[in-house]
């Protein structure tokens, strides 16, 4: 069931277009991430959903009702800020109770709800502390508990993990997933971190230059990106140039070999194409096997922990990165010519830009 529908939304600031032609619907209980580089418009959309900025054009509907111009306080959306924005003069418990006092709940009910929220985020023994006495991770938990306390229709999160260090960020990702599962609240999450988006979301809307470039489940966007931007933004990728074979309309010629690939009918022989292949799909070595074979020269071999990154130069002079599991290794030396194989299913073909 569609909970939130965004129709043809646009926002311009003094001739600068921040958002344009945004259409997005969010199902009840979904975890949707707005992903994009900074300045791509994702935060502007989140602010419009919260009611902090007024869109120049378009409609936001909640359960079919137009809420585009509703005051933030009437929307019943929770908001988790980058940098938390906890009330510094109030204790943890009173921060969480704020929305309940505003709603004039009875004291016993407020106390019960605050206790419930504290145990939900695992801060039971910190109820009396002031925000400045807490660590970053603890403050973040309070901010989430505060935003969830009144039972919001939607929880909006603006880069909530960006201030935390890497270890804590991974813990909090799991924590947020758990909270999403346990509360059943719909999450709309803004981030510029594609790993975070892939790890947490049911669906990702990828933003660039104020538009949604693609929307879909992380797996689909990663495996079958429809645009050059998404193919490059989500995960690591190699882009190589190729062209459609003159003599066979199902074949592509690229990096010194030819192979059959899913081509669009509108592409004509000789058309320049962009071929992408993920580093983890390039296999090295003489191991027999099917797939597209070609030769490349090792340029550089670097060890980065779980994997080894091998920079290759193809016979057409283009460079590509292959990642191999470290234990599968590493007799590859710069200058060495190696046999490479790629599973045809792992190759993507995009019209050249």
């Amino acid at each position, binding site marked *: 069931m569609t909970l939130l529908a965004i129709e043809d939304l646009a926002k311009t600031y003094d001739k600068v277009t921040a958002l344009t032609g945004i259409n997005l619907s969010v199902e009840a209980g979904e975890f949707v991430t707005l992903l994009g580089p900074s300045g791509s418009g994702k935060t502007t959309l989140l602010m419009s959903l919260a009611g902090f900025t007024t869109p120049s054009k378009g409609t936001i509907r909640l359960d079919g009702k137009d809420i585009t111009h509703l*005051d*933030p*306080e009437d929307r019943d959306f929770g908001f988790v800020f980058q940098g938390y924005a906890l009330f510094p003069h109030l204790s943890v418990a009173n921060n969480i109770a704020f*929305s309940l006092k*505003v709603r004039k709940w009875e004291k016993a009910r407020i106390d019960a709800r605050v206790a419930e929220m504290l145990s939900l985020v695992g801060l039971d023994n910190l109820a009396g502390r002031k925000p400045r006495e807490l660590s970053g991770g603890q403050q973040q938990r309070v901010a989430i508990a505060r935003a969830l306390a*009144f039972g919001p229709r939607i929880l909006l999160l603006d880069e909530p993990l960006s201030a935390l260090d890497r270890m804590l960020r991974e813990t909090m990702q799991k924590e947020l997933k758990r909270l999403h599962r346990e509360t059943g609240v719909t999450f709309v999450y803004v981030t510029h971190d594609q790993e975070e988006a892939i790890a947490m979301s049911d669906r990702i809307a990828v933003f660039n230059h104020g538009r949604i470039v693609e929307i879909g489940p992380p797996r689909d966007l990663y495996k079958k990106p429809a645009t050059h931007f998404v193919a490059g933004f989500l995960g690591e990728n190699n882009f190589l140039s190729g062209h459609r074979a003159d003599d066979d309309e199902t074949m592509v010629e690229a990096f010194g070999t030819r192979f059959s690939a899913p081509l669009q009918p509108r592409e004509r022989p000789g058309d320049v194409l962009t071929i992408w292949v993920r580093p983890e799909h390039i296999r090295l070595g003489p191991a027999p096997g099917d797939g597209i074979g070609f030769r490349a020269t090792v340029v550089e071999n670097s060890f980065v922990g779980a994997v080894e990154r091998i920079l290759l130069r193809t016979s057409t002079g283009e460079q590509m990165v292959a990642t191999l599991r470290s234990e599968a290794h590493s007799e590859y030396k710069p200058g060495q010519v190696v046999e490479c194989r790629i599973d045809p299913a792992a190759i993507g073909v995009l019209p050249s830009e």
Partner: protein
Amino acid sequence: MRPRPIIEVGLPRILAWCLLGFLFVPILVVIPVALTDRDYLSLPQDGISLQHFAALADWSKGWLPSMLTSAGIALACAAIATALGVAFAVGAWAAGGWWPSLMRILLLSPMIVPPIIYAVGMVKLWARLSLLDSYTGVVLVHVVLALPLTVLAIGASLSNLDQRLVQAARSLGARPMTVFGKVILPNILPGVAAGALLAFVASWDEITVTLFITGRAVVTLPRRIWTSIQDAVDPALAAIATVLLVITVLALIARSLIERRQRQRL
């Protein structure tokens, strides 16, 4: 070895004490003068006397009424200037943009314009509005003079406040007035208190403009002192200075005690 603070080292230390002496010794002189047994400004000759303090308490001498007048005007001025200062500072903070900066320059102009020029202008204006020598007239003038102080003090504490607290409170369901009362005000209370105190003090010892716009009806303490200096130099002046000095010192001690207790609680 721990490096010694620079204040403990030879010459700077002597200089620091000289400076403190230069600041305080002239002030302390008023205390013996207030206790003089003569009718003119002098040190005690044949013994000390409390007669000049007694004169302060004598209603008919005019010291006590003028103190009450000043206190009343200063309280009214502090209340109004603080309320206006909070309204302006919070509004400018929340709105942002170019017009609050313009307004701020306008509000701070009383600090830049010499009081004597301001006074001459106010005499003309108050004469036309029949506000000369009235409590309302004095309070209004003092409010204008105190407004820059309250706006600066409150603005300083607002500048440390995260703008997103307002958004956070609204997303939690608070209406703008609730946001003001429950979120903004509690966080800027020290600035508001400082602004109110500054406004009170500014009104309490304002003399230049007050001299021009008051006559017989409104006699503030600075005006009463001014008058007594013109007549004859009365040792009661030293007595009143002593009283004010004691009050100020007590207030400062109280403040540092409160601050220490607050710091211990953290």
